[in-house]
């Protein structure tokens, strides 16, 4: 068709990945600018406001860093599962469960000192998030239930569960009808680092990133996960416990998303409320794929997409552009990266 055909490269194109990501960003920005134009807004002004909001001021950089924390943790988890070809789309729900778990601890043991309460919250968030991921994992293993759909459905259920809790049993009696839990006690709040707006969750984030990187690179279990990701047959040949590894990666995935939920409730809003569900779990999928599942690149692209979110919020404020603009960009970036990845393994040749 069209006089062009694909030809497989002998060696993968080594510079392909970064070039493709940059190309995808430029293309997506271009299409988004066109959309702005269609809505009768100035594309140039729109992109300028987007830039201002993303990178143009110190508050923007700080905001992006704050937002990249939950995105990074979710993406780290999602990537671990993706590496084993387990399609965990459920970071959003696992995030919600983590938030619920942390809140449970914070509301039930409000008088504990921080050095006890905080680990308890993180522990409970990991267990809740991990459990939410364990359900689809076990369904996939025992019954071959498609995990894409089950994790997705569990997202909807998790959000509704969170709403049920804050509208019902956990509702703050002093909230004048607003669906929020009581504010956390001092021991349950993650504090700021020094004078900055950045909180200690950021350190957790760095620790988790380094930990996962080292785990995948230096441990045998990490190697086993990598091998199992190459296919069930190879895993069987290498005598790996494929089922247990599936459960493990899902549990890790869920626990990391759970931590994200915990940090978001404890450090950012200091209570549980439905507004924490803003789709970080879905953004995480885009991030993981952009980064080709590598922890360092995940950090970079998590920051990038967090900056995009901040930029879009700026657009929303200054130009009244709907927040959905961010999803459009995310979708476009992901699709163009996917399409572009072909260039890593194939060359385009003119037909003779």
């Amino acid at each position, binding site marked *: 068709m069209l006089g062009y055909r694909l030809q497989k490269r*002998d*060696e993968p194109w080594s510079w392909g990945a970064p070039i493709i990501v940059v190309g995808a960003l430029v293309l997506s920005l271009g299409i988004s600018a066109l959309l702005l134009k269609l809505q009768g807004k100035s594309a140039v002004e729109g992109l300028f406001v987007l830039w201002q909001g993303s990178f143009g001021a110190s508050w923007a950089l700080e905001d992006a860093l704050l937002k990249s924390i939950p995105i990074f943790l979710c993406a780290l988890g999602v990537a671990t599962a993706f590496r084993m070809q387990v399609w965990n789309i459920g970071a959003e729900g696992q995030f919600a469960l983590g938030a619920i778990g942390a809140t449970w601890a914070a509301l039930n043991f409000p008088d504990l000192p921080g050095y006890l309460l905080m680990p308890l919250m993180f522990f409970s968030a990991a267990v809740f998030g991990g459990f939410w991921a364990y359900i689809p994992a076990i369904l996939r293993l025992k019954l071959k239930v498609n995990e894409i759909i089950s994790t997705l459905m569990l997202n909807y259920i998790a959000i509704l569960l969170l709403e049920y809790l804050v509208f019902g049993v956990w509702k703050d009696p002093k909230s004048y009808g607003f669906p929020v839990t009581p504010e956390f006690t001092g021991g349950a709040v993650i504090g700021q680092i020094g004078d900055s707006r950045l909180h200690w969750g950021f350190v957790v984030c760095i620790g988790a990133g380094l930990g996962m990187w080292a785990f995948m690179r230096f441990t045998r279990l990490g190697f086993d996960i990598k091998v199992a990701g*190459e296919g069930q047959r*190879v895993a069987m040949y290498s*005598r790996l416990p494929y089922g247990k590894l599936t459960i493990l990666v899902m549990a890790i995935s869920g626990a990391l998303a759970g931590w994200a939920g915990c940090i978001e409730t404890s450090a950012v809003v200091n209570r549980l409320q439905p507004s924490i569900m803003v789709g970080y779990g879905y953004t995480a999928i885009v991030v993981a794929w952009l980064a080709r599942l590598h922890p360092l690149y995940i950090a970079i692209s998590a920051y990038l997409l967090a900056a995009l979110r901040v930029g879009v919020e700026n657009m929303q404020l200054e130009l009244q552009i709907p927040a959905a603009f961010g999803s459009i960009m995310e979708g476009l970036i992901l699709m163009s990266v996917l399409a572009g990845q072909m260039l890593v393994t194939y060359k385009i040749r003119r037909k003779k």
Partner: protein
Amino acid sequence: MKGPQDLTRPDSQKATGFADAAPLISLKGITKRFGKVVANKDISLDLYPGRIKALLGENGAGKSTLMNMLAGRFKPDEGYIEVDGVRKEFTSSKDAIKAGIGMVYQHFMLVETMTVAENVLLGQEGSFFINPREMNDRVRKLAVDYELEIDPTARISDLSMGEKQRVEILKLLYRESRVLIFDEPTAVLTPREAFRLFEALWAMTRLGKSVVFISHKLEEVMAIADEVAILRRGAIDDEVMRDKITSKADLACRMVGKEVLLEVTKEDVEIGEKVLEVKNMTGIGLRGINLHVRKGEVVAIVGVAGNGQQELVEGVSGLRKPPKDTIFIMNKPWRKFFAEMTWNNSMSYIPEDRLDLATARNLDLVDNLLLTTGKGFTKGPFLQRDKAAKVAQELVEEYDVRPGRIQALAWQLSGGNLQKMVLARELYRQPHLIVAEQPTQGLDISATEEVWNKLLEARKMAGILLITGDLGEAVQLADRVAVMYCGQIMDEFPVTDTAKLDNIGLLMAGVRE
């Protein structure tokens, strides 16, 4: 009863009346490259009506590439194809089919979930709607006409290999193909089914069709070909009339390029204790299997593919759970053996599927070494990758695995080099039992020789269960031969028993004296 020795064509089966006919198809100077590899080099061939042309060559000699160009799936980089003396450009399979070229692939191109009739009619032009009853009737009539009986309403997945092949032939007949290409058609057939196929081929030549028969089995080529073209390293090495070939040995010489046939010397090795014992095993598709392998010996399982060899291998290698108390490895019951299995001094499995079972295609050679030796490079929770890299480098050098870089990914290696890497890894584990499944399939002669020698050498530490479809390989390597048919072992005898060896075709077809 026809054994493999007397497959020769009776005179009544000879096609006559096409002596001076012009070629139906001519290949003119065809060259095809894949990246840097030249798969076909300047190939010219003429295919005449009423004749069977055998295309003989080792695996990897370029036979399939050439035929895929005839079938319109690949396009030649240079050269062209003439149909009835007219130059044609095939852009897809459709063009080739229109030109009257039909192909029966080694791995059947049938849709398993559809019926025989649907498969036969797939891709045929005609009215938008189809009438299943009329469709079935047409296919049934065609089958009866050519004595290729088959139920048109049967689902492909329910058919035997022989029946599936009949469906493939019906497809070609339905399209009135004039040039019929068969790629290794007897690989999946019993000798008796193979003879039925030959009769069908002869019948087709009497109708003036041209048949191309791709094979690497010498006796078959001797039996049915009118002309033989020999393909070596992508080029036509020799083209002779069948009458000019004096004997199988003569043909063999021509095929391997004036070299002697491959033979390896087999030194005597001390026979040790039993490393594998299969006791009266019934289940997972097998019936009453009794078998043992001692350290120092090679036991070959031969038979037509799909007669239970795979089930046996999966059972022994631990991929599939056998019935209780049937398999004993190194004197331990199966369950106990695999529960306690260590990475070395244990069992090695060299599977037929090198790229997606024995290795992970996207991992490098170090990771692929670690696949089965990981436990040997573990310290606490950590993996000693540096140590593994050193060992991998040593193995790559010792076994001459090209291109010699341990950073190479598995898929970048050729079949022979990949197999050498797998062998290197598995022997590095110092196994006491080796299960080798089709260890030289698809390898060229030099790689085959290396693999054979390594396996023979490995007898010093291990007993070898060899599963092969290649009788020559069994004869070269084995001490004992067991013939499998329909999940049973028909007979087991020492390789020195030439009387039984001569009758092996009957055993493979399930006939006991």
